[in-house]
């Protein structure tokens, strides 16, 4: 018996709105992930218009192949640096005539407050309707609609949340980290061009779906910022000179696990997952930024010296758990036959803490972790069985207990496993 009571089907109007919202989101995602060369005339026109709106004449444009070129002596950005006063003195003196980047930031936030006000009406939970759960982004949209979640909240997760996860968290964040890691000193804020698409895209969606309209001045500004997101990479506005970076030249992504709104993350195990035309970029494995050595030359010594456990884990998987355990001499806590997987063993190892001291860390040493090395129940193409490690709580001493824990089962229940494939 299905569908008789309670389970109302979402109305076709809501479904159609949601489909159109997803299509607009995908347009903006494509701009954010674009590897086309920058549309220089479009970018220069939009940025010039923004300068005029803050009472500054259009700047001279200096193009750079990547944000990373800010870091090389003699690069276009370094050569232009003397004209970008704020790069040298990031804290503007109070009361002084604000520099152009501050004026632009004010323009941007003024626009956003007005657009947010127009959108807020649509985001309000209708009277009597249930408040959307915090887990809404993970709920399949048709089910959420059927459960009575308002269309406004659904469009918000479909467009804004999804673009934020994909472009801000998955793409921009590792690039910012890479940038900060290479930079000898902090560089002041840039605007992010294509990587700002997660901010302008949602306003565009509300407007194009006919659910929000904006005053002409705010719409005009949105069009200009949108034009930068559609045409270039990061840009640094200075007095008289604006440095603009190219878009990414190559980008490798994969769907985020369990995503229901088209979220993506970076992943490439054959080189940088995101690469600019001058070779600057970031290595990312399954969404985790890693140093280049993890791909090019992972060794047990480097793994032992690595402070970040995520990076260590990615490196271990590159060389394989067996090879790593042998080479690193991890101590075996216990081994036991794997129930339901004849001929295979469950092996529980102590995972050593990294010996590297981290300056400024506020916590003491954490509990020692353990790793359970398990063997797949089915064969790989080459006839071998894949072995892999699963981190488990350090409080578990028994391999069968640890295997049970991974499925939320007690040792005794897991021991009844009849068959593993």
């Amino acid at each position, binding site marked *: 018996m299905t569908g008789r009571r309670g389970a109302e089907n979402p109305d076709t109007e809501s479904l159609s709105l949601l489909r159109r919202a997803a299509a607009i989101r995908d347009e903006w995602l494509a701009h954010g992930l674009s590897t086309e060369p920058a549309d220089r005339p479009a970018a220069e026109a939009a940025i010039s218009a923004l300068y005029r709106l803050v009472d500054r004449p259009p700047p001279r444009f200096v193009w750079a192949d990547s944000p990373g070129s800010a870091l090389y002596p003699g690069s276009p950005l370094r050569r232009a640096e003397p004209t970008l006063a704020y790069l040298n003195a990031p804290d503007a003196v109070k009361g002084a005539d604000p520099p152009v980047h501050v004026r632009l930031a004010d323009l941007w936030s003024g626009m956003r407050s007005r657009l947010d006000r127009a959108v807020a009406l649509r985001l309000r939970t209708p009277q009597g309707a249930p408040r959307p759960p915090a887990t809404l982004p993970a709920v399949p949209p048709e089910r959420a609609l059927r459960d009575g979640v308002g269309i406004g909240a659904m469009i918000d997760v479909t467009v804004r949340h999804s673009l934020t996860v994909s472009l801000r968290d998955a793409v921009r964040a590792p690039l910012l980290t890479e940038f900060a890691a290479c930079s000898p000193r902090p560089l002041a804020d840039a605007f992010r061009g294509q990587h700002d698409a997660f901010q302008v895209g949602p306003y565009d969606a509300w407007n194009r779906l006919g659910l929000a309209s904006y005053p002409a001045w705010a719409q005009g500004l949105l069009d200009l910022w949108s034009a930068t997101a559609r045409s270039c990479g990061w840009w640094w506005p200075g007095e008289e000179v604006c440095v603009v970076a190219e878009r990414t030249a190559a980008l490798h992504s994969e769907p985020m*696990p369990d995503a229901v709104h088209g979220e993506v993350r970076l992943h490439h195990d054959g080189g940088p997952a995101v690469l600019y035309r001058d070779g600057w970029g970031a290595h990312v494995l399954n969404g985790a930024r890693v140093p280049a050595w993890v791909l090019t030359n992972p060794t047990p010594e480097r793994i032992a010296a690595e402070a970040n456990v995520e990076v260590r884990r990615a490196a271990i998987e590159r060389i394989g758990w067996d090879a790593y355990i042998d080479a690193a001499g991890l101590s075996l806590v216990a081994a036991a036959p794997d129930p339901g997987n004849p001929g295979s063993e469950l092996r529980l190892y102590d995972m050593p803490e990294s010996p590297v001291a981290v300056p400024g860390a*506020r916590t003491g040493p954490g509990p020692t972790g353990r790793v359970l090395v398990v063997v797949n129940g089915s064969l790989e*193409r080459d006839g071998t069985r894949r072995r892999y490690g699963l981190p488990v709580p350090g409080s578990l001493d028994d391999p069968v207990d640890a295997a049970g824990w991974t*499925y939320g089962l007690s040792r005794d229940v897991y021991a009844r496993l009849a068959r*593993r494939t």
Partner: protein
Amino acid sequence: MSTDTPATAPTLADLTARTGLTVLDHLERGAAVPVLDGLQAQGDLLIVPLHLVADEVALSGGAAGSGPRWTPVPAEGLELLRSAAGGNPHTLAAAPGTCRWTPDVHDRHRLALGVLAATAPAYLLHPEHGGSGLAPGTYAVRRQREAALRHAWRDDRARWSPGESRLVAD
């Protein structure tokens, strides 16, 4: 001759022909898929008879306390979970009218994808892991978890932290 209960369990080849689903060709297609009433694992999924986890997994109400919403499992199968890269689904398949599925469950460990109830043998198929046969009964399908890492404040060094976990996606 009963047509309901085959004298021998179907092979992977029989199941892929019946459902139109495919498995990778290095798996032994001629091998019978045993139909079992106990606990089975298929990669990162676990199929557990509901009574074994009755203290932890319970059917819950859908909207407006109307009870769990059951979906009949169609002939072409019902996808329960896909891999991290978006492929390789675990698909539930059964003869039409013999199996139903609901995602409306509460699991104390938040690992259950849902519960299936079968009145005839049902099968879980996966391109890389092959097939698992389920005897008539009610089962919870659970995902696998691993201990997660916690990042200390202003600390680039992630630490093992018991009590926190994340789901495995292979």
